[in-house]
């Protein structure tokens, strides 16, 4: 059905059906001059005050008394709004609706009126704090549920975007919305997750993380099976690859499921720069991921077991720096790592006023004094510094914590058997992360199971003039998109 039919009720039903009866679609009907009039708007996008004050109030005047024969024409010309459009196609109605317009349908006319009632979604939206944006849009999610959904809708004005809502928390009664693009997502995952969310039995819920924990069966994994982000552009771009976004009321983060390791190493901003530079960034990020996990372990293995791997010129320097340090290298490494972790945690928890003093003490203790006092060697400070800096490249906190744990396990392995130990822990590590499944999708998707296109796209951005997100949809739903690119 492309043209608007004369029966307004049919049109309304059709729109409802196309949008899958979203919870934020408002339909109001009343009779004027014996004709049925429908008023449609999307709550999350439209300004309700505006609708009540100007449109509904106008209807409450005594229009009946006006002697206009063509009621539609009269309304179109006289409704007191700034921008009024005449629509003749249903697709246009849907688009206008999703953009925040209010639609008036009158029985018997094959036309609809759309009135601009856009909610100003940018009002109290602030810049993101943890995921900083350099090139992309600066808006971040807020604590307002409606605004958050609006921020995503704003970017994906398509009838394909579906929202499923549930209310969880016996006392808190928080709204949770699952947002996804219908044609890209795997239906089984949506149904399963939705059922699980609906059946959550808890008093109050405060964070998306809690929801994910409650619907995940295997909680022993070191890496999380979701990522939480505060950037709407990130969410929208991930929705395009067939992911599901979970929005919780009063939370300024949105969780994305399912995810893979390759997602962690990507950044939505890669799409905003030239492919060749973005590819370089991705390779750097991948290297940093390896460096942050392995550097302390490799240093310990080199200096305590596999001395032959150190170049001769460096060997003297290493040996000189180590001389006079009373502790074993592994103790030295643990000392520095723990000190750094304490510093990081303190910095995150302490009020902003303390940060300066923390920085000074941290820099002095970690950098200068510890070396001068002969407790640690200067090279160890460098090793830990490289490790920590590389670790900061991973912006998702949960992932960073997983990486930290594995760093320690690798360190333990190397302190017991040198490079052999690193190799053994490496096997365990790979086995472990390849066992992780994030809502049915293997964590290593792209690598194992192997998709050539995805690997290429993840490390080196495609230079082809083609929307490469198409490739990535295969991760979530290989059956559906399997033949697309092979």
């Amino acid at each position, binding site marked *: 059905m492309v043209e608007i039919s004369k029966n307004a009720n049919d049109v309304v039903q059709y729109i409802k059906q196309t949008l899958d009866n979203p919870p934020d679609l408002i339909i109001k009907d009343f009779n004027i001059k014996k004709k049925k009039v429908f008023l449609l708007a999307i709550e999350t996008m439209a300004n309700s005050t505006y609708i009540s004050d100007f449109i509904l109030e106008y209807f409450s005047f005594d229009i009946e008394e006006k002697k206009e024969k063509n009621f539609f024409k009269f309304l179109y010309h006289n409704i007191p709004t700034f921008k009024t459009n005449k629509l003749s196609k249903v697709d246009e109605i849907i688009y206008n609706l999703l953009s925040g317009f209010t639609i008036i349908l009158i029985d018997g006319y094959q036309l609809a009126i759309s009135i601009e009632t856009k909610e100003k979604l940018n009002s109290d939206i602030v810049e993101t704090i943890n995921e900083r944006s350099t090139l992309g849009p600066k808006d971040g999610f807020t604590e307002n549920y409606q605004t958050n959904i609006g921020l995503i809708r704003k970017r994906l004005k398509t009838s394909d975007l579906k929202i499923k809502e549930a209310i969880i928390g016996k006392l808190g009664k928080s709204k949770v919305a699952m947002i996804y693009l219908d044609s890209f997502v795997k239906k089984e995952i949506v149904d399963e997750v939705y059922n699980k969310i609906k059946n959550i039995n808890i008093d109050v819920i405060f964070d998306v993380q809690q929801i994910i924990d409650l619907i995940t069966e295997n909680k022993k994994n070191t890496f999380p099976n979701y990522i939480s982000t505060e950037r709407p552009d990130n969410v929208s771009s991930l929705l395009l690859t067939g992911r599901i976004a979970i929005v919780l009321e009063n939370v300024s983060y949105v969780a994305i499921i399912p995810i893979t390791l390759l997602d962690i190493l990507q950044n939505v901003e890669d799409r905003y720069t030239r492919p060749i530079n973005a590819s370089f960034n991705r390779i750097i990020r991948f290297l940093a991921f390896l460096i942050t996990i392995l550097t302390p372990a490799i240093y310990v293995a080199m*200096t*305590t*077991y596999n*001395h*032959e791997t150190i170049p*001769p*010129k460096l*060997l*003297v*320097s*290493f*040996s*000189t*720096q*180590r*001389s*006079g*340090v009373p502790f*074993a*290298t592994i103790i030295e490494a643990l000392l520095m790592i723990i000190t750094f972790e304490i510093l990081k945690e303190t910095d995150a928890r302490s009020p902003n006023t303390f940060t300066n003093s923390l920085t000074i003490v941290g820099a002095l203790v970690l950098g200068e004094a510890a*070396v*001068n*006092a*002969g407790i640690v*060697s*200067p090279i160890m400070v460098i090793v830990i510094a490289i490790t920590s800096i590389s670790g900061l490249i991973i912006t998702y906190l949960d992932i960073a914590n997983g990486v930290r744990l594995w760093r320690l396990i690798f360190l333990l392995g190397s*302190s*017991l*058997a*040198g490079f052999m130990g690193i190799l053994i822990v490496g096997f365990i590590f790979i086995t472990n992360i390849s066992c992780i499944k994030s809502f049915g999708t293997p964590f290593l998707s792209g690598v194992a199971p192997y998709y050539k296109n995805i690997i290429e796209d993840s490390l080196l951005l495609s230079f082809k003039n083609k929307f490469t997100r198409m490739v990535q949809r295969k991760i979530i739903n290989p059956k559906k998109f399997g033949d697309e690119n092979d």
Partner: protein
Amino acid sequence: MTKKMIILLNLILLTGCWNYRELNDLAIVSALSIEIVEDEFLIGAQIMNAQKSGTSNGSAEASSNTPVIVYKFKGKSIHEALRKMTTESPKNLYLGHISMIMIDDKVAKEGFKDVADFLIRDHETRKQFKVMIIRNKSANQGLTILSHLEALPSQENLDILNTASNYYGNVTSVSFDEFLSFIYAEGVEPVMPYADLEGDIDEGMKKESTEQTVPKSFLRFKGLGVFKQDKLVGYFNDLESLAYNLIVGNVKSTIIPFKCDTESYASIEIVRYEPNLKVEIKNNNKPFVKINITGDTHQSEINCDIDMESLEGRNKISKLANDEVEKIIRSAIEIAKEKYTSDIFGFGRYLYRYNYKYWEENKENWDQLFKNIDYEVNSNLTLVKKGSTLNSVKGATNNEK
């Protein structure tokens, strides 16, 4: 589950650490010297001094002591002598980073095989360290001379060896494993670079000697020692060693000086060249060697009056240079043939590779054949650049503007 984990953890943690050694508990040996004195090995070990300066402050600068310490011990076996060093050294010796082995003239003459077993059997040593002979003094004195431009003497010697072999060509760096493989290879004999210690050696081991512009003593690479099997039979001088390197293709770049008139000299720089060795069997069932050298040269210096603008002049100087190259190659082959009877150039190996039948028949009396071998040397080096000026400064006349 917990029980299993505890057992597993204990299995890992209580077994101790295999081959665990802290870096600062090791005495890192950078070079070894091997001599034989009164039927016993005399081993010298040069150890990198990784001591911090001072005790209280933690700066990572090296101490003001000498950069290396040399220990010297006798033993019935090499390993015994090395272990005895722990009676003097506070740290156990670590051989993984040896970069050079020095032997003296006597060990070289009596046979390298006598000292090779420990070095090849030991799991710590890499087999790529270089070998060299100290000709005029005892080998352990070679370890004591301090470096002048590099931090570590062994590193400096290694760098000198590489630089000399790349830019001059009178030596070539030979590693331990290469040397051994040459001993056992058919139809070719090994060479080993040798150096002389010059100056006052007792002064050279003091730190003060590095604090003056002219070092009190130094180690100078002179050429290549010629071996027959594992035994040294004689030494090649500068030019003969260069000729050897030209024949086998070890030279990257070198300078050849030659006479361009009765008293003055000119020189060419070889920038790219390719030796071509062929051994043919003549009608009298005797091998005949053909050596062809092609490549590019730059005219680097002319001290006599030759008209470089004319084709004749350039041809003349080019011919003189080629004649000189042929001459030095011939003299080296003559000495190897007549004096040492050692087929270091690998003529036999060529036959072994390309005429195996002949080699099988004649390898028993190859020495005799090599001694009387006929050969022909052709040098076809092309002069590709004349440098920034045409005629020599000496030959320039006033009427040339």
